[in-house]
């Protein structure tokens, strides 16, 4: 590990999901407080791994995304943090700034009747813009070594279910990450598998890990997400299980596995439509009749539910075991 790496961490701060996660009816309850202490330890290890390592922390809140900490913009926050003789200054700085900002944002959130959807896309695009900013050093500072920052990566700690309405923005973010060789890692801390984040990790060469023992979060983080992508080829990190390549339809924002696609603009529809809503193309009536006849008799299961048998083995695979 001779080169510095950059880590952008995206925390999914959804009050309702964290409430569910902490409830003792779960097999391994994990409260937001314990979660944060694990995450801060992980962040400290990232800084400690190498002096030049840079860090940015983003929070995805209901309807809002904020930057909680970044190692380049700490000047204004540094004076607020009191010096502590018993703590290493950089650790102390990260911990107290992240905690203070989360607290501030949660207080700003108030007590709304209904929780707005989580602004994961906002946080993801902000992380991409931030990486773009730090990797493209302005021409004025050309004296700096351009190879200082390689291996930028984004780690998403997700607790919320898939937001099917944000299918296109998520895909666009994935493609830009792919273009800039940014690895997206996903750790699903709570809740069902998310289809889009699975695809994100798969397409950018990151790993998607579903947390089974949630009390061992820190171990998962350190063993699989601390080594930068260049190192992971050498050490064996837990790999992704399955990748679900489903998409969200444009008409109802449902996540579908069999869809009808316009041949002109490739828009996805969950049922045969006479006119494409995106490019206004009219489809031949014979096609519609044929497709309606060949549709599966059972309507697809409810919105966004996991694919039947997604976590078990498929009939074909099991029968051959």
């Amino acid at each position, binding site marked *: 590990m001779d080169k510095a790496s950059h880590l952008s961490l995206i925390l999914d701060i959804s009050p309702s999901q964290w409430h569910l996660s902490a409830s003792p009816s779960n097999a391994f309850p994990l409260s937001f407080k314990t979660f944060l202490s694990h995450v801060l330890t992980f962040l400290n290890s990232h800084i400690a791994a190498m002096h030049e390592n840079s860090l940015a922390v983003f929070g995805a809140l209901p309807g809002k995304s904020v*930057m909680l900490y970044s190692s380049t*913009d700490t000047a204004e926050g540094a004076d607020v943090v009191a010096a502590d003789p018993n703590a290493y200054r950089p650790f102390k700085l990260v911990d107290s700034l992240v905690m203070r900002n989360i607290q501030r944002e949660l207080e700003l959130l108030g007590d709304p009747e209904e929780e707005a959807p989580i602004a994961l896309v*906002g946080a993801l*695009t*902000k992380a*991409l*813009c*931030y990486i*773009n*900013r730090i990797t493209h050093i302005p021409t004025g500072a050309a004296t700096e070594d351009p190879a200082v920052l390689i291996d930028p990566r984004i780690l998403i700690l997700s607790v919320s279910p898939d937001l099917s309405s944000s*299918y*296109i*923005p998520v*895909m*666009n*973010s994935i*493609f*830009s990450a*792919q*273009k*800039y060789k940014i690895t997206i890692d996903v750790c699903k801390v709570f809740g069902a598998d998310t289809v889009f984040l699975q*695809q994100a990790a*798969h*397409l950018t060469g990151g790993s998607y890990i579903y947390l089974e023992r949630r009390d061992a979060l820190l171990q998962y983080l350190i063993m699989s997400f601390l080594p930068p992508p260049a190192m992971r080829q050498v050490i064996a990190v837990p*790999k*992704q299980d*399955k*990748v679900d*390549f*489903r*998409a969200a339809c444009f008409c109802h924002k449902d996540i*579908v*596995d*069999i*869809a009808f*696609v*316009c*041949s*002109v*603009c*490739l*828009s*996805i529809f969950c049922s*045969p*439509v006479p006119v*494409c809503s995106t490019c206004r*193309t009219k*489809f*031949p009536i*014979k*096609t*519609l009749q044929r*497709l309606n006849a060949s549709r599966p008799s059972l309507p697809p299961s409810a919105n966004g539910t996991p694919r039947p048998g*997604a976590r078990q*083995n*498929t*009939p*074909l*695979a099991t029968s*051959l075991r």
Partner: protein
Amino acid sequence: MDPGSDSDLSLDEGNLTVRGRNKAARAKGIDPTKDKGKGKAKDQGYAWEANYTRSWDTVQEDEGGSLQGAVEELMARGRRRRLLAPAAAIRRTIIRHLILLLDLSASMMDRDMRPTRFDLTLEYAREFVTEWFDQNPLGQVGVVAMRGGIGERIGEMSGNPQDVLKALSERHKLEPTGEPSLQNAIDMARSSMSHLPTHSSREILIIFGSLTTVDPGNIFDTLQSCIKDKIRISLVALAAEMKICRELCDKTGGQFGVAMNEGHFKDLLFELIPPPAQRAVARTTGGGTTNPAADLMMMGFPMRLPDTSPPSLCVCHAEMRTAGFLCPRCMAKICDVPTDCDVCGLMIVSSPHLARSYHHLFPVKPYIAVMTLDNAPKPTSICHACSLPFKVQPAASVTDGMSPLGRYRCPTCSNDFCTDCDVFVHDVVHCCPGCEK
């Protein structure tokens, strides 16, 4: 087209006419193979029979003795050629599948093209791939090499230009040696495209520097199976024209060209970048009255099984495999996507493959340059996306469309962004961090 390219266009057209006539001959029902010798003899069919045109004569100096005008005209001509192409309403293939077949035989070490044929081919192939993905964002490219009498898979079919470029950049792994085998390499390319759905385009582009081919069987059988599979073969020869090469291209509807110099080589390659017009597909259920190009297709999005899953039989090869894709309708296991399911016939595609084009459909609204902060009640001090602090002092001189404060505001969510993020959001991410759309 790059300004350094100094090919002559006249010969190019000569090639085109020859091909056109052969097609016409076929249309009339005359066997083109019989007609060919005669047709060739009548006018310049082979590169070495063409009138020698001095490429430097086509470039004219202007009054001041400068070549600037001539170069600009050449570049403009290249652009115009590209613009003129899609004028007629022909259906073009949007999802292309191309196998790049590189000759890595000993003859590629010839130095008639500088520095060597091999180095030049690699350099142009990389430029070709970059440009190809720019114009065909939904396409997929694989790389196969012919060397030592066999076909070698260098890069798997991939929609990510980085993967293909990586395969082409490892020069030490591609060292030319031995004899080329057209048949082996084409068979390998054909088999790696065999799973594709019936209506998708399949193309092979061969860069061939040798004058021989060492084949284990009858190459005409391979040609017939390529015609049957509707694979379009294009070939750029670096040495000279071989009959089999022209035959491969003519019979499959591809383009054939012999590169005369470095610039012409590049031109021949880059002519193959724009999507080809799709062949008229015999429609079993044609609408007739409505636009035949538009149709609704039923597609399935599969689930990918990891390498660690228990092995099971795949329906395409009937072999025990661990990794694979599951058809969402019949749960059959398939080795590659996109494909038609062998059991239920459903077209199976990976959804990210489709999603690559969506940013054209839903572009981000252009941001408005903020001229003054007077009517903003509480301006933020940092860029909404990257948290870069904004300039406090407005710049003295501003050009049109630029904000003196370096602030660009989204018309939908009214957040301010810096110059870099404005460019990055519109050119790369295609999603506004403020409104998440």
